[in-house]
């Protein structure tokens, strides 16, 4: 029996009951993350990335949410697990890093207090020992003068510092999995690079698996081992980062890459975008969700394409292989 990956998501669907009926936010998503590996989950706003991420930790608390499928972490099924048991996994085995460090910390407690709180929720360390550990964690996350920073309140720290605190908090119980929801989006580019380097180091040092949600392809190329591209709640293409970046096979992925201005050579007067807007949820779709915006759409697109293996990737598109191989791009990012 082959060893099960650290995180295995099978056929995960998240739907919300609304007045207009059931709205699918995530549909049939399957993902895998190995220990010490980084999965980049890419897609535009509203594509279901964050909902996928939240459902891993059972953090979708909307009473109207309907969750189905399977999320197995380290061999344990998380979907349908009672909240009491789930709580002991959150923050301990699997930790989460949020998008906006400015609002992710409770404003009325010192950052040390907040880290200690998490450590003590999952271990029997004394207050003192937990505090020492918090200082060590902050130091590990590259915070200068950590003994003083633990006494600080979140508003006294910069955005980059706060995100380091959030990361220190996330790794405080040595989780096997970190799920990060656009952890660098709210930060300056230079700080972004530092945070990415920090996450990469933590992954190497502790063998942590990371699910990294972003809409920034540049960030993905830097940190991820594998990529999954989401569109309208489904995965349209996935595969190893090198292969996918060198030769995207789904028209949507291709469109994403085309929207990046070239680093060398003349710039186009206008950036190429993908025409149209993502479909509004609610209207039940039967065919390929991307077809209305797709320049290559043809008759078979009225049915829903399955995610099928193709080369090193898996692609959900009916286009013939030769057309897709034409998407190859002069890869600045893949280099």
């Amino acid at each position, binding site marked *: 029996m082959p060893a099960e990956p650290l995180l295995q998501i099978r056929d995960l669907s998240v739907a919300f009951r609304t007045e207009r009926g059931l709205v699918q936010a995530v549909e049939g998503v399957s993902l895998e993350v190995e220990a010490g590996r980084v999965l980049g989950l890419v897609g535009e706003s509203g594509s279901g990335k964050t909902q996928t991420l939240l459902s891993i*930790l059972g*953090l979708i*608390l909307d009473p109207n949410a309907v969750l189905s499928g399977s999320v197995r972490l380290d061999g344990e099924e998380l979907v349908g697990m009672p909240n009491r048991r789930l*709580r*002991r*996994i*959150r*923050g*301990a085995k699997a*930790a*989460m890093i*949020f998008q*906006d460090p400015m*609002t*992710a*910390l*409770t*404003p*009325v*407690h*010192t950052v040390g207090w907040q880290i200690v*709180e*998490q450590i003590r*929720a*999952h271990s029997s360390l004394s207050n003192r020992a937990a505090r020492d550990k918090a200082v060590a964690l902050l130091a590990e996350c590259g915070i200068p003068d950590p003994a003083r920073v633990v006494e600080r*309140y979140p*508003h006294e720290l910069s955005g980059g510092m706060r995100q380091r605190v*959030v990361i220190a*908090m996330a790794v405080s119980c040595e989780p096997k999995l970190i799920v990060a929801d656009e952890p660098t989006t709210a930060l300056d580019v230079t700080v972004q690079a530092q945070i990415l380097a920090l996450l990469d180091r933590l992954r190497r040092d502790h063998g942590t698996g990371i699910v990294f949600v972003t809409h920034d392809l540049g960030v993905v190329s830097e940190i991820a081992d594998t990529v999954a591209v989401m569109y309208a709640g489904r995965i349209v293409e996935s595969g190893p980062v090198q292969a996918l970046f060198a030769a995207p096979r789904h028209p949507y992925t291709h469109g994403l890459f085309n929207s990046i201005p070239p680093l060398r050579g003349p710039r186009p007067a206008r950036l190429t975008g993908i025409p149209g807007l993502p479909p509004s949820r609610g209207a039940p779709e039967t065919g390929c969700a991307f077809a209305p915006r797709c320049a290559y759409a043809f008759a078979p697109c009225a049915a829903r394409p399955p995610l099928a293996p193709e080369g090193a990737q898996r692609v959900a598109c009916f286009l013939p292989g030769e057309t897709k191989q034409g998407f190859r791009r002069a890869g600045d990012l893949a280099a």
Partner: protein
Amino acid sequence: MLVAILSRLGRLVFVMFGISVVVFLIFFATPGSDPAARIAGRNASPETLAQVRQSFGLDQPLPVQYAVMMKRLFVTQDLTSFVNRGQKVVPAVIKAIPVTLSLVLGAAVLWVIGGLIVGVAAAATRGGWTDRGLMALSLVGVSMPVFWVGEVMNLLSQSRLHHTFLFSWVPPLGYKPLLTDPAGWFKALVIPWVTLAILYIGLYGRILRADLIETMQEDFVRTARAKGLPESRILLRHGVRSSLIAFVTMFGLDFGALIGGGALLTEVVFGLRGVGKLTYDALQTLDLPVILTTVLYASFFVVAANALVDALYAVIDPRVRRAG
């Protein structure tokens, strides 16, 4: 820190000075309100009026009158009532203060605890039956006039149900000093406390519930959940702790106003001779020195309560600390 306290005290003195001037002018310099005529009584002869003016110093220029008034109020403390000749005003107010303090402090303890419980319980069960029941009850509490509640309480505890085990312990209306008769003090005040607190429990519970529900949507609450904390801890240590600003602000205003005489209706209904009752009686006879004194006294507590609230802000919200 010391500088902050001193500047706060300075502001307090300044505000009180301003209030004293305004109050003085309203009572002594408003056209048509001749204090001498009031003291001398109806149909007094011009000679009597002149005599009264002279003996009360009312024939002097206004600034002198003000200075004399303040001196008699704060330094010699021998300001006497215009109505009950010979009654010294300052000792009368000082005697009334413990009554009002006892009433308001006890009620404040009740309403802070009650408001917290109602607000947290309602927010925690949002949309459920507990929430709806508590909100309906609090609306009833807010809507009932305090004098009506007080009279109903009196009717039940003093007459209709006084002979039953429920209310047989209730003493006759009136105040018992805490130091000489602690048990009597407590028994005499329990019903007034509850009566006064009902309105505020409803009010504070609703405010806290609204703030708490808003806070629980914040990102940091999601972080707390992702940390694997128990829901009760998230609610209390992260939610309630971050939603107290409005609660504390209201408390400062209400507490100051009540101590300053705003508990008047409760005091009258329960026969407690506190500052509110004193002001009430003085207003009926337009007893200017008493009114002046109690208004100044009230302004002191309103300003002092606000200063206390500012200090509390710094305790509950570290973001305020540096700004101070």
